[in-house]
């Protein structure tokens, strides 16, 4: 993974020091809260329901053992012993003190981490495929471009006060494991007919009050010009994006207001100018320098089927169950990817305790894992595990409470922090997730239901990605009382669709029953081998509506 050079390191140290001076000016009254708020937001510091919340950037979801250990230490000493991994693969600490944040930023800088642009109207954390470097159909490691974009967008003088936040995602395979098309800019590495490497670029995706999937604005952007193309899009957006209405300020609104053809025309004009200037064409030497950091580790020469792995599965039922759901094929024979579930039944989805973080760092050191990945579904991944090590890995994860065998299943729920933590929320999401998980906890039942992605948001801002859920749940406020709407048929994979509202909402007990009824309807109507999403797409909403609302 990328390692800072002296320039990267100096920048994050200076940024931490800059924030220290800004905090001092706030505490001595030089800065009012109105003046301080944009400054703290640009360092990911929110004032939430109970306390300040700090959002730490995890660039393209990748962490080293040292970084994981530091996050465990910081969450223990400066928060209340846990953190929450978000759908943008960042880490939130919900209980920090303003006066401690400068020290936290300095400690993060020591391990090449920061909180820059995890909030504010700027370019946010660039996310990637969590299977980067391990997926068989990958054109290149998407994180190389992510790191290039991260540097280019950091403290960009022209794009730090955009109409609204701006989210970019990069994948490099046909399989979308990162909810690509829900981003403001969606980039997919491809090869053209001539075998040349380049990028397909889409613009205008976003969830929230008016959800949209991104539309193609560049069918093939040659590699050397990708930064110029991205800057061209940002220029068009900064100039023309709406600034009069918070809910209409994302680039998705501009795209649908002007139409994708007009957007493409404007982007081409800016792109031509930038290409001509050459100022954003990265020299091959620099691309190579960054790419080297993402070179895969030296893999052992192994055969495809590990006898240790097969034997362990025969001897341990729980291990076999976990292997079935949480272990995934790797491009290298004898290796696998392993999903670490942060969705134990009945606990908070995406939460990770300080002990667990430190335990993961221990595991990484024991097994010599250079990296761990955070996914947008609030789980984690070890990308390069030898099959013969899987059993011992599972035992270590199990001891930490991180071996729930539910990846992609009904209890693998995405939930935003919701009204339990968040100042913006209308309803609680976590207890809904917990109760659904409890009702469907039985492993046999989960296996029978198969892939079923439930995503829960506590408000219209959609941080829980409910628009992309096979079953989505949106919490609203109905005259001061929590109310929940069901949406069906969303997908954040390469078959991306936006879920549709089924009908009137339910209270916090009724929603659990409604979800049960939806799932029961699926079980009754499904054809052999169908996932929930397949059944819904085949039979439509009517049978579900009837079940829920007929009487």
């Amino acid at each position: 993974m990328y390692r800072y050079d002296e320039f990267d390191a100096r920048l994050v140290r200076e940024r931490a020091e800059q924030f220290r001076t800004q905090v001092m000016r706030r505490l001595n009254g030089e800065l009012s809260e109105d003046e301080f708020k944009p400054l703290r937001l640009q360092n990911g510091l929110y004032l939430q329901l109970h306390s300040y919340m700090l959002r730490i950037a995890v660039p393209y979801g990748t962490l080293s053992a040292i970084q994981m250990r530091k996050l465990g230490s910081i969450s223990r000493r400066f928060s209340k012993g846990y953190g929450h991994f978000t759908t943008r693969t960042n880490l939130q600490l919900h209980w920090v003190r303003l006066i401690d944040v400068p020290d936290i930023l300095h400690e993060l800088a020591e391990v090449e981490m920061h909180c820059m642009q995890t909030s504010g109207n700027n370019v946010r954390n660039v996310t990637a495929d969590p299977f980067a470097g391990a997926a068989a159909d990958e054109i290149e490691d998407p994180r190389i471009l992510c790191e290039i974009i991260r540097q280019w967008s950091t403290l960009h003088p022209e794009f730090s006060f955009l109409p609204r936040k701006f989210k970019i995602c990069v994948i490099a395979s046909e399989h979308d494991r990162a909810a690509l098309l829900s981003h403001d800019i969606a980039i997919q590495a491809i090869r053209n007919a001539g075998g040349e490497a380049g990028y397909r670029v889409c613009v205008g995706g976003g969830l929230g009050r008016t959800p949209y999937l991104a539309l193609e604005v560049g069918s093939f952007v040659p590699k050397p010009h990708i930064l110029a193309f991205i800057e061209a899009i940002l220029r068009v957006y900064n100039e023309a994006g709406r600034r009069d209405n918070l809910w209409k300020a994302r680039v998705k609104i501009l795209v649908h207001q002007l139409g994708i053809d007009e957007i493409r025309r404007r982007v081409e004009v800016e792109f031509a100018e930038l290409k001509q200037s050459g100022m954003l064409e990265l020299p091959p030497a620099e691309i190579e320098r960054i790419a080297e950091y993402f070179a895969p580790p030296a893999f052992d020469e192994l055969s495809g089927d590990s006898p240790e792995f097969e034997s362990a599965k025969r001897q341990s039922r729980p291990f076999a169950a976990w292997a079935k759901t949480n272990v995934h094929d790797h491009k290298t024979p004898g290796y696998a990817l392993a999903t670490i579930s942060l969705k134990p039944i009945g606990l908070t989805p995406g939460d990770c305790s300080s002990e667990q973080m430190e335990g993961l760092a221990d595991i990484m050191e024991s097994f010599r894992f250079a990296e761990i990945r955070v996914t947008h579904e609030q789980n984690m991944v070890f990308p390069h595990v030898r099959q013969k090590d899987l059993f011992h890995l599972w035992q270590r994860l199990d001891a930490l409470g991180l071996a729930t065998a539910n990846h992609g299943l009904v209890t693998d729920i995405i939930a935003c922090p919701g009204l339990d933590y968040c100042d913006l929320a209308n309803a609680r999401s976590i207890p809904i997730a917990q109760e659904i998980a409890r009702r469907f906890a039985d492993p046999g039942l989960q296996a029978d239901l198969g892939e079923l992605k439930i995503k829960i948001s506590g408000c219209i801002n959609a941080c829980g990605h409910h628009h992309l859920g096979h079953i989505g749940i949106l919490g609203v406020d109905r005259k001061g009382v929590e109310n929940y709407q069901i949406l069906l048929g969303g997908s954040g994979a390469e078959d991306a669709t936006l879920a549709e509202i089924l009908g009137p909402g339910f209270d916090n007990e009724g929603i659990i029953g409604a979800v049960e009824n939806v799932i029961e309807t699926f079980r009754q109507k499904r054809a052999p081998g169908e996932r929930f999403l397949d059944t819904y797409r085949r039979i439509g909403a009517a049978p579900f509506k009837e079940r829920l609302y007929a009487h």
Partner: protein
Amino acid sequence: MLTDSGSKQRVFRKGHIGADDFLFVADDAPLADRPVIVTVTRFLAEKDRLLSRPAPLGVRLEPAESPELLRSDLPKLKLIELHVGYFKDGRAFSWARILRTRLRFTGEIRVTGHFLLDQIAFFLRVGVDSFTLPGNWSETEVEKATGLISNVYQPSADHRPTILDLRRRATVTATAAE
């Protein structure tokens, strides 16, 4: 701190605060015999008269007004003033950059209105020369705020060496030393 430049015009330029050399004149007010700034509306309506005056002329752009409106007239203008209505409106950063890199404006670009001390560094990078400051910002404060981050990642209108340039120099030096 936020500024709303009132009548006490103090202009920060190249590290120093000095008096305002220009006077902003409203659309219906008479033109004084001195350097003035007028709105785009007035400029376009009275262009010939304004340009025939010997005194230097400036034009103020509101956030929604692109400098493209003045494209052909820029060589005759001494000053473009970018009025920021509210600090969150980041269009002025693009207008300044366009003035420098696309329209090749060589006159003075000034920022006035509501902006943060902490935005000045960004404005300088996109080609802004001067700022109208409120009474309570000092030269030291501004210098300090603009100097906190030593290096920059991305190229901009200021043509300042980027971290990429510094990396290349470091490699060249290392190679030369071998």
